[in-house]
């Protein structure tokens, strides 16, 4: 029961952060600010979903694998964010 509560709370929060990412992507005025919303809110949303799902998995290894998926997404997201940021600055794709 407590575990269910854990799942419900964390997954719901995950949804909220995905929402934050989307709203940021739509509301922020320039490309670089949108990038902030994307890299930060989304990764946290995915992380919360992952942690929320942990008690529902059958094995510890599955949980570790799931966390690894999250870390992988974070790593690639972080690197990609820098590359995109560099690109936006270079191409003048943004308004200062």
């Amino acid at each position, binding site marked *: 029961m407590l575990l269910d509560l854990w799942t419900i709370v964390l997954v719901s929060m995950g949804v909220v952060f995905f929402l934050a990412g989307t709203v940021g992507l739509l509301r922020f005025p320039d490309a670089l600010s949108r990038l902030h919303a994307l890299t930060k809110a989304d990764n946290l949303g995915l992380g919360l979903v992952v942690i929320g799902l942990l008690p529902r998995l059958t094995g510890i290894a599955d949980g570790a694998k799931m966390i690894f998926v999250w870390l992988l997404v974070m*790593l690639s997201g972080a*690197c990609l964010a820098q*590359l995109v940021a560099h690109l936006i600055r270079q191409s003048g794709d943004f308004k200062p």
Partner: protein
Amino acid sequence: MTAWLDSAALILLIGLAAWVVLGRNTFAAVAGFIAYGMLLGLVWVELQGIDVAMTEAAIGGGLTGALMIGAARRLKSAAPVAPATAGTLVIAIGVGAAMAAILAACVLALPNPAPSLASLVAGNIAATGVQNPITAVLLAFRSMDTLLEAVVLLLALIAVWSLAPDAEWPGRIGVPQTANPNGILAYIARVLPPIGLVIGFYIFWAGADQPGGKFQAATILAAMWLLIISAGLGKTPPVSSRWLRAGLIAGPIGFILVGAYGVASTGAFLGLPAAYAKPLIVTIEIALLPTLTLILALLIPPPLRKRAEA
């Protein structure tokens, strides 16, 4: 509730497809196509085709997406293409709609209960020694298709090679790619591929008993290799390389040799003797893995020298 999730994913999928087809901007269409590929993976998970989901996510989303982006960039400077006339558009809409309607009617007219070979597979899977039914079909029941498919890939590569400028034959085709060796692209190209290698081997090895297998693994490995190449940390081998050519034919030739062993041991080409079925399947997969990896990676064309010999 599942129906809701299904519908949401499918509506999104159709929307993205419409964007890919209808969008004006080619780059935007390609971006939509990548999103489409990712979403397809999800839809396949919903259809409980885990193996297919892996393949579609890896090949449909990742590799094809990268291929298309590269192509779109290089075609940017080409002369613009005249848009279709209104008449063509109207007729094309009609044809597309008619096609969709007829197929929808066919889907609704399919017999119930649906025919299936699932129980036949379940009844015979023990003879193959593997537990993943899809691997059993791919490497035992319909192994001819898999063998021919490896040949198809090889042939596609020969076709792509046959397009190379004469001046570059038999060396490295295309311009080597470069990037700042201390930049972030090089950084990720150093960090990610070893991890991808471990994941690729895992997907490959797990494929005998659970979803996964050589195609998915080969796609991952190919993507990692391409990442290394695109960051300037490695080069494609020259087409004359003995090692490369040996790797390219290792898979199909190994497959055929195992098949010939089947003639000797079971009396049927591609037959698997019950006692050694699983080791033989693994042997075939091990032979195919480098071949598929090399071909999938080399099928993504490197930048060509412009007007090298025009």
